[in-house]
């Protein structure tokens, strides 16, 4: 038998046929939807008088617009209120399971899928959201799609897609202490660029990914799209299966062994073909922070903001644009840049292990006066777990606001927004102009621990210096 990588195996198992335009008609086994990109798709179905083909394969939640400081409906924002009601209606009209705000299961769609056991190895998964690549951490092939494709999936459970090439990214050796999955993925994007992954799926591998927990793998896969890769995955292993065991939608005990051997069979074969291989030394990765307006504009905490005059001609204009927008100085150290807001949360870093890691270091430290610091759990499940462990109290005592689950300040479609040109140290995944709700707001991306260190000192800081004691 020819040796195949995981991407090819999963693709072949779901390919319905070839379309006229040369793309593949791909069956998508799991479809996740949320309130922002689905109402228009349901509208198109109604217009064409089409039913949802396999309602049992679609799951819904509400995350982007939910306020994280009020739970009572109607929400103060009438548009947000209309959107949640529309999703509720669509799910009930079409027979789709909805993890509503009163189920204890609501949260960011990419946090909810894995924690409910909906995300499993060997699946094809799609969602009308770019960060669907998160689910690849389980050895699934997961794509972010547009609303017309949401419609296509609702109507046919299939969509048109061109096959991707596969690049294996191996990170070998061991990470220095105080270096997180977020630093690893920011480092990868910095090396390969925001377009480096165009046309590719990324297979993450090597010592570092082998030793990562499932949640760390999710953090890395989450940002594949920021490097231009439509999907990113890690081959399933014992950690994957252990994570899934006993979750609400995981196979039950009777079917467990069969499921695991089936899952394992999707793993990339030893010696299979890759279209490209990149090797990275873990020792080269330090705490990494973005200084610019796309996620590849990142540097190590000890480095300085690039000087456009010294840059290659092709990069000069974009560096100048970023420096002007960020109101920072070329050649200045990134360390010591004053911040206004600190945000811990999002589908990149809003999981229980992220909150535990930060809480374990807070230890009497306090958020600096004048800094607004908020912690937004990724889901109601995360929030409950955290509260059972007393993390909410630790955060509150340190001066952080403790919020309800949602996307919140990651893209600021709810009331959590930057004001004016505030600078936010953020554990989210995008630092585009205006991303956090103010057209002039500024974002620096980093790990949750680095965000906490910035909240405490009021400036961008090496967390290892703050939390060393």
């Amino acid at each position: 038998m020819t040796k195949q990588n995981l991407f090819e195996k999963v693709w072949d198992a779901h390919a319905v046929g070839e379309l006229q335009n040369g793309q593949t008609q791909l069956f998508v086994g799991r479809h996740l939807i949320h309130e922002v990109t689905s109402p228009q798709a349901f509208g198109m179905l109604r217009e064409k008088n089409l039913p949802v083909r396999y309602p049992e394969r679609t799951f819904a939640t509400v995350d982007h617009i939910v306020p994280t400081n009020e739970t009572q409906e109607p929400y103060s924002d009438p548009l947000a209120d209309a959107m949640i009601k529309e999703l509720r209606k669509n799910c009930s009209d079409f027979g789709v399971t909805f993890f509503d705000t009163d189920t204890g299961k609501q949260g960011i769609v990419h946090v909810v899928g894995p924690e409910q056991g909906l995300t499993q190895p060997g699946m094809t998964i799609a969602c009308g959201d770019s960060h669907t690549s998160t689910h690849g951490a389980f050895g699934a092939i997961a794509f972010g799609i547009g609303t017309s494709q949401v419609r296509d999936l609702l109507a046919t459970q299939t969509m048109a897609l061109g096959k991707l090439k596969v690049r294996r990214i191996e990170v070998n050796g061991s990470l220095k202490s105080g270096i997180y999955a977020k630093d690893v993925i920011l480092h990868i994007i910095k090396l390969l660029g925001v377009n480096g992954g165009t046309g590719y799926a990324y297979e993450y591998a090597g010592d570092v990914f082998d030793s990562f927990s499932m949640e760390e793998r999710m953090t890395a896969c989450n940002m594949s799209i920021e490097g231009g890769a439509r999907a990113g995955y890690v081959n399933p292993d014992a950690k994957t299966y252990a994570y899934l065991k006993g979750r609400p939608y995981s196979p039950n005990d009777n079917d467990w062994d069969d499921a695991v051997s089936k899952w394992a069979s999707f793993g990339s074969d030893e010696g299979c073909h890759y279209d490209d291989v990149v090797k990275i030394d873990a020792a080269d990765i330090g705490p990494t922070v973005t200084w610019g307006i796309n996620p590849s504009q990142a540097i190590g905490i000890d480095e300085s903001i690039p000087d456009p005059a010294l840059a290659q001609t092709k990069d000069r204009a974009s560096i100048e644009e970023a420096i002007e927008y960020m109101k920072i100085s070329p050649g200045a150290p990134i360390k010591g840049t004053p911040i206004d807001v600190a945000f811990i949360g999002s589908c990149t870093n809003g999981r229980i292990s992220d909150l535990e890691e930060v809480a374990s270091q807070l230890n009497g430290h306090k958020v600096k006066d004048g800094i607004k610091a908020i912690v937004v759990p990724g889901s109601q499940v995360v929030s409950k777990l955290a509260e059972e462990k007393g993390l909410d109290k630790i955060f509150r005592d340190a001066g952080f606001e403790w919020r309800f689950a949602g996307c919140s300040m990651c893209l600021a479609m709810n009331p959590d927004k930057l004001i004016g040109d505030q600078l936010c140290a953020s554990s989210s995944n995008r630092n585009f102009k205006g991303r956090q709700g103010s057209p002039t707001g500024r974002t620096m991306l980093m790990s949750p621990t680095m965000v906490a260190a910035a909240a405490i000192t009021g400036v961008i800081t090496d967390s290892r210096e703050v939390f060393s004691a």
Partner: protein
Amino acid sequence: MPLEKISQVSGSAVYVPGDDIDTDRIIPARFMKCLTFDGLGEYLFYDMKFHENGEQKDHPLNDALYQNASVMLTGMNFGCGSSREHAPQSLFRAGFRAVIAGNFAEIFFGNSINLGMPCVSVSNDVRNSIAEWVGENPSGQVLVDIKDLKVRAGDHSFTCDLRPGARDSLLNGAWDPLDELLEANHAIESIHGNLAYT
């Protein structure tokens, strides 16, 4: 109703310079609170066009000369960032029917073709030449010829590029794949039944 076969698009053009124009800039997230795409045209490039106090910025889309443009000319990696279809929808609803750029982000490209809005790539030199022509002839017609892969402006003709599959689907009126997807009913049923998971 069969889809329109799109072999060429023509109209006056506007040049929006800049590389890596992301979907958050094409349509800021706060305008995505909508149940249909209908009104999105109004918010196209909103934060690039307006100051926070609502005053107009100096932006080509605010220039009276380009109010009727239906062809957009822009830089590299246009539409990077989010998978949100709100971005191409806002261009389409603002009256744009074709985009000429250095190149396009993948998801944005696919979403645009799905709407029947061709996205063709041109070299830097070609982009500069078209931009210059548009600057001199703001109401002149720019023709994007999908069949011959040319952009024509006045007496000039430039080479452009469009992925063969996407080009065929526009030429054959098959740019929206839904009908074709629906046809494969039997094969869909069989994969649904054979998958190890429901």
